[in-house]
């Protein structure tokens, strides 16, 4: 069974997903960071594949992408690093990457590598749903990879139903009109949006991303969904860390404490 399906079948509330950029802060930190995220008590690991032009990301994640690329990170190297990680990490792992580096690697080769190393799902923010259905869905299915789409407060109800129909992992709710890391608090407009989508009764679990940084915002987001994704705030925590595993554990525990 796919680990993402297993997770959401057995845990419906306060699911915490942590995003970090592969090869950041240092090239060899990828797997150690994953282990620390697991030790800290998070539920899902989202690995960002660094890209030169990450248009859906804010300054913090852009910066981590650039540092990772300058460190020498690449798709090939990422798959090398991930070889054998399943001996240490049992959490579901999602790769988040822009489409261009993936198609240069080759979509089929990419999916195959994902399966080989033990990746469970994909988030490709600039892969449109139509293109996914026509060109790639069969391949994702063949290699047992679940796909996740994003929705925003502007996404129409009709579109949300289509996305729900064509998603088999979870729905990633962008919480503000914002690129990652742009806002600090949850506003009444966002609450209205969370409630509106919660009331739709979608078949997929929902995680709220963008703007979640601490126990308070994680708790708020979890009231309206199955949990939340932390990205920029996590990247900030580890950027200048002198004790990666200690700091990561401490941060995640501070977020999930009730």
């Amino acid at each position, binding site marked *: 069974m796919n680990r993402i399906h297993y997770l959401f079948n057995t845990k419906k509330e306060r699911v915490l997903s942590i995003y970090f950029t592969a090869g950041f802060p240092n090239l060899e930190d990828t797997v150690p960071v994953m282990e620390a995220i697991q030790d800290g008590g998070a539920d899902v690991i989202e690995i960002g594949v660094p*890209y*030169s*032009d990450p*248009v*859906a990301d*804010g*300054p913090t994640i*852009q910066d981590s992408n*650039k540092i990772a*690329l300058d460190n020498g990170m*690449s*798709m*090939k190297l990422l798959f090398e690093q991930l070889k054998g990680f399943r001996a240490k990490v049992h959490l579901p792992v999602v790769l988040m990457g*822009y*489409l*261009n*580096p*993936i*198609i*240069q*690697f080759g979509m089929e080769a990419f999916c195959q590598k994902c399966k080989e190393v033990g990746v469970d799902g994909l988030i490709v*923010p*600039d*892969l*449109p749903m*139509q*293109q996914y259905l026509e060109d790639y869905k069969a391949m994702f299915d063949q290699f047992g990879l679940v796909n996740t*789409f*994003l*929705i*925003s407060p*502007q*996404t*129409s109800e009709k*579109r949300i139903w289509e*996305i729900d129909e064509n998603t088999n992992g979870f729905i990633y709710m*962008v919480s503000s*009109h*914002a*690129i990652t890391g*742009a806002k600090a608090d949850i506003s009444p407009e966002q609450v209205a949006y969370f409630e509106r989508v919660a009331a739709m009764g979608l078949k997929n679990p929902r995680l709220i991303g963008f703007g979640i940084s601490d126990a308070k915002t994680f708790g708020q987001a979890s009231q309206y969904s199955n949990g939340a994704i932390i990205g920029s705030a996590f990247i900030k925590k580890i950027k200048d860390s002198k004790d990666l595993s200690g700091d990561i554990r401490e941060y995640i525990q501070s977020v999930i404490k009730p």
Partner: protein
Amino acid sequence: MIKVDEKGFYGKFGGAYIPEMLYPNVEELRENYEAIMASPDFQAEFRGLLKDYVGRPTPLYFASRLSERYEAKVYLKREDLCHTGAHKVNNTIGQILLARKLGKKRIIAETGAGQHGVATATVCALMGMECTVYMGEIDIARQRPNVERMKILGATVVPAVSGSKTLKDATNEAMRAWINNPVDTHYIIGSVVGPHPYPEMVARFQSVISEEIKWQLKEKEGSENPDIVIACVGGGSNAAGAFYHYYNTPEVRLVAAEAAGLGVSSGKSAATTALGTPGILHGSKTILMQTEDGQVVEPHSISAGLDYPGIGPVHAHLFDVGRGEFVAVEDKDAMAAGIELSKLEGIIPAIESAHALYALNMIEYGKDDVIVINLSGRGDKDLETYIKWGGY
């Protein structure tokens, strides 16, 4: 047929590869742009402003001394005489009228050389709309006069400090700004790039260039078809406009001049079709300069307007099917061609347009051939570069 299909593809290239956060905006545009552009009141206002505000039609000028020098009949399409100094304003007039019809209140734009930024700031002043222009930090430094022009016109200029700090990064920043302000803001893209429907929409606004060439040439030569049309290509909006009504007239040769920078193999180049491979950039599938890993390579050209690692999807298609002839012009040759035109015809061209002029030295033609070169912009903004270059 060279034509966009209903999904926004020109052959293998185009489409709309955008984050879901941009989908509602882009979809709103896609659903409405054709109907709005076809409506009589939109056309009347657009055409009226092109005539009385921009100064269209721009002359199709027979360059006799240049013709003598190159032993052909060379015409210059004088887009440099447009208000604001380049063809860019054809598109910004069209898009701001469209934005108003869609009820938008704010305008954002990216700019490289600053010409599109100035053209956007100009129409925002004209329509009384708030304007923010994203511009690479390096371009801000090398195009100071245009930065000040935008500010005089009331626009806010925001430096793009990521990546190569040039046009590509300004475009990234503008896209992010649009994601942050999806409801009340329209993004005026300045070239035939970006997600569908932008490449086709911008090309249609610029197609007034070839529409005019046709009747002007008919008057002067008795035929609306030249033998060759030459235009420079960064993203490719002036080329798309100059080629548009000739796409499906194969007897008219279409020549696209890209920027080779210090040389195609120098590592300091923006010659996209020579160096690039298919991939995705700024929301469309096109040809772009990238590493084996799919990271976008930072380009180089002496001309900020051509300093872009991709080309519009329609040009990728023209290249792919052999409809366009692509040449790569080095910095030094473009500068020489700019100085040559100044001496021969009393016209100092933009360095972008000088790339198209130099293409005369790189293609074969007969001595009776009628050649139209799209002189996309004037050289005022480049004076500092000309002065530093010297050799005149």
